[in-house]
């Protein structure tokens, strides 16, 4: 039986969120899987695979007291999922430049067309309010080869003064 849920929680960041949420889940009989948790723009965001022998409603009852007390908005999806399904990235791409509308769509659009399957993307805005800079880091799988990605990236970033770097990842198994 598939008993995995994706639990999403978003709210104002404050110390202790992870500890309190995971304690409530443990006490409620949940098993935790893969997760991504990070602070974005002063908010704390949690995406967490939760294994739970019960309905989405029952899981909501487990999480709602702690979510309410921390002012987090929960969202629960029953998902078709399993552990040990990792895909290995074979390319890392970093892109940075003056922050401008449309950078992400343009670059990721060109990369998708050249066969990039994104496995992990994080981006950040640094610099100052007057002169923000955008930095993006992607790990992915190059379905049509690294060369196709490299030329797509060159075309997508050439005109706009965006800098991009593409590094093949060769995982060492030993």
């Amino acid at each position: 039986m598939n008993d995995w849920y994706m639990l999403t929680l978003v709210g104002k960041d404050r110390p202790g969120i992870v500890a309190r949420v995971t304690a409530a889940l443990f006490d409620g009989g949940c098993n935790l899987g893969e997760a991504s948790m990070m602070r974005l723009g002063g908010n704390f965001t949690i995406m967490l695979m939760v294994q739970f022998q019960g309905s989405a409603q029952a899981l909501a009852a487990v999480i709602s007291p702690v979510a309410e007390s921390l002012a987090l908005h929960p969202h629960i999806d029953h998902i078709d999922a399993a552990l040990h399904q990792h895909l290995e990235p074979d390319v890392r791409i970093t892109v940075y430049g003056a922050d401008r509308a449309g950078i992400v769509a343009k670059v990721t659009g060109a990369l998708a067309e050249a066969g990039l399957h994104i496995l992990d993307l994080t981006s950040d805005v640094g610099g100052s309010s007057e002169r923000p800079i955008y930095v993006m880091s992607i790990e992915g799988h190059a379905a049509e080869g690294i060369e196709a990605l490299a030329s797509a990236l060159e075309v997508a970033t050439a005109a706009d003064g965006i800098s991009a770097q593409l590094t093949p990842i060769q995982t060492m198994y030993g």
Partner: protein
Amino acid sequence: MAIFEILTYPDERLKQESALVEQFDAELHGFIADLEETMRAGPGGVGIAAPQVGRFQRIVIVDCSVTRKPVPNHGRLVLINPEVLTWDGMEVGREGCMSVPDYTGNVIRATQITLAAQDEQGQPLEFAFEGFEARAVQHELDHLDGLLFLDRLVSRRNDLFRRKVYQPKPTKAKKAE
């Protein structure tokens, strides 16, 4: 010839330090042949260390001539009682391990090392390794000291910071104790 069973974490024995090899005899040569067969049986493996199959002696095999994308390499190497002499450069790269199934992660390694070791007859060897091969050798040497790549993980978000504070394990100083 035989293929050994690979110890997998959380088997505590992987955390154990291995002893120097003192006898370079037929038994050792037989073990090395089986160790190599075990390495070749695993998909994509470019190295193996004796403690991964439960023999706690300072023996590793590395062969970076078999990578999907070619890298500079010295071919098949049997390194006994290996010792890093010098480290240079730092680089983040992705590693996996036969003893840690279904997980890979980013690890900082020296980009260039020089190494002294003995061959299967006990004769002295010296090598200079770079890049991917240097990474493979450092990964295997860690096994001899009871370390896994899990002990050296960095995340992409902080690797620039970690790069500054990283110190290679001082193998030489330790042996002198």
